[in-house]
């Protein structure tokens, strides 16, 4: 009886929910717009929606008599920060969703192949030792080196089994953590402080130049995943099942790892290590819309942007001082992760 009831309920939801689901998808696709406007208003220097529109017009050449401090706050500080938070949120969510598809497990993060450890070491190297090397570039390069090394280590005879990838990711992370520790021991206190702060992840160093330099590769990675997203459905079924319909799973694993790593490295390089966003956002979306990557990937882009920028609002405006946003996402994310772990029994890992 109970089962029968459950079935009927499901069928009823399906029949009545077709348009409803479409509407909800539309709503989630538009979320970044209100999130953007709200975030532009919030801050130590609050603005009304009218003022935001007015300032935008002023920027376009209309003199509406706003004091120039407004312009500095909004265009040099708040706007780049809001845009960067949105970009980073999108990237972490999309690459998280892609990695989860590749690994056939809803609980992996974009950092699973040692990306964050590599980035942290790269950043530390630049902040503490090789000062002429820009942090962003160093973090970006070393995060890619880490992912590349993990992928290479896991590949034998042209095949890259998922379990080998997980293990090589663990090893590479450990290696870079050890290297990071060496740097941390060697440098002076001031450098150490900036290394620790970098690792917590924050948007407060946002600038137009950071945005401009990270956008091209981030965009390329995200677009690649977006275009090929249906193929993640096939990859997520397993290598055998991909082969049986004529797909080369190794080729697509490599394509998706490269795209996701390029994007995630660009994000980590400008914002530091922001934990668990790449896990929470795709998972919330899966709970509402199901696991189909044709829907999941575009929604990860928009919902990831909205989520991240709102959490960053919290980070900069909730208290009198700035809290690194990585701390907030981790503190929100950890209980959520624990809940998922128990609810899905380790994500149904074989």
């Amino acid at each position, binding site marked *: 009886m109970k089962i029968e009831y459950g079935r009927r309920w*499901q*069928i009823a939801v*399906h029949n009545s929910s077709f348009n409803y689901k479409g509407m909800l998808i539309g709503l989630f696709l538009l979320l970044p717009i209100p999130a953007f406007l709200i975030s532009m208003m919030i801050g130590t220097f609050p603005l009304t929606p009218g003022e935001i529109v007015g300032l935008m017009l002023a920027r376009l050449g209309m003199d509406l008599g706003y004091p120039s401090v407004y312009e500095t706050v909004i265009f040099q500080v708040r706007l780049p920060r809001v845009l960067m938070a949105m970009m980073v949120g999108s990237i972490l969510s999309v690459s998280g969703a892609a990695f989860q598809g590749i690994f*056939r*497990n*809803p609980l992996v993060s974009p950092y699973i192949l040692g990306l964050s450890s590599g980035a942290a070491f790269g950043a530390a190297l630049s902040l503490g030792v090789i000062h002429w090397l820009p942090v962003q570039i160093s973090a970006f390069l070393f995060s890619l080196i880490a992912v590349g090394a993990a992928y290479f280590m896991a590949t034998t005879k042209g095949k890259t089994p998922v379990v080998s990838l997980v293990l090589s990711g663990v090893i590479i992370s450990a290696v870079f953590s050890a290297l990071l520790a060496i740097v941390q021991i060697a440098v002076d206190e001031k450098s150490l402080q900036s290394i620790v702060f970098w690792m917590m992840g924050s948007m407060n160093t946002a600038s137009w130049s950071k945005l401009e330099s990270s956008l091209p590769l981030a965009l390329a990675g995200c677009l690649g995943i977006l*275009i*090929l*997203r*249906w*193929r993640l*459905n*096939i990859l*997520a*079924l*397993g290598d*055998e*099942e991909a*082969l*049986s*319909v*004529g*797909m*080369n799973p190794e080729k697509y694993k490599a394509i998706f790892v490269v795209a996701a790593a390029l994007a995630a490295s660009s994000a980590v390089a400008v914002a530091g290590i922001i934990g668990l966003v790449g896990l929470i956002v795709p998972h919330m979306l*899966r709970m509402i819309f*199901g*696991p*189909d990557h*044709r829907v999941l990937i575009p929604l990860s882009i928009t919902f990831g942007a909205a989520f991240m920028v709102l959490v960053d609002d919290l980070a900069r405006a909730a208290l009198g001082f700035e809290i690194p946003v990585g701390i907030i996402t981790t503190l929100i994310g950890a209980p959520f992760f624990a809940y998922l772990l128990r609810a899905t029994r380790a*994500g*149904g*890992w*074989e």
Partner: protein
Amino acid sequence: MSRGIEIKNLSFAYDGQSILDGIDLSIERGAIVTMLGPNGCGKTTLLKTLNGLLRPKGGEVIVDGRAIDRMSPPEIARMMGHVPQGHRSSFPFTVLDIVLTGRLPHISTFSAPGERDEEVAKESLDLVGAGHLTQRPYTQISGGERQMVMIARALAQEPQFLLLDEPTSYLDFKNQIGVLKTVRKIADREGVTVIMTLHDPNHALAFSDHVVLLRKLDGKKPDGNGDGSHPHRANVVAFGPPFDVMTPMNIQEAYGMEVELVEHNGRRILLPL
């Protein structure tokens, strides 16, 4: 041009260990061919060389007059559907989403499935009697239903050949028969040639047009120690209609165990002694 699958002097080895040797088979279109034999005899390996997933050490596979190793994976996938052994998914994809992935060989690199693909997927589900499952999460249906869904996925490839690797394993008695009856129906109605591996000799007897009975290679050089009865130790014990192949003598040869054959109302059953 011959229609069907020609296997010529095929051999295969894993890490130097010979698994398949001297296999010559000719499979005609429009039949159900069952491969049967003890664990480790190379049934699955043989099945995977047919659609090019494994590359043989020697010999060749020719499908409808074309060598399989000269065809691209999507080309092969349009011709041959394949259901690998026991599949499970971590993600609760809907049944329709799973079956849609079978459309891959018909979809170009940068596109996703369209309306026609969805139609084909739904037709395939109807064909295996799983049309009512379309929107159900794959993780919540029964093992028997899952097997039907995976067969529907292979049918969505619109193949001429269907390769099934142990389609009845992990299923209960009723579901085993259900799957085999569906396979029979697909072969008869759609004219799809089915090549499958099975574990139960009685299923092979009841549901196939031809049986390939295989034995395990003993891995040693074929001179033997006094046992002169196998001049060359190839895998195939017998190949032909089930009644001819499934004799107690052949079963003894393949499995090394004694069985008796019981006839009842024109049906044959093999019973272990």
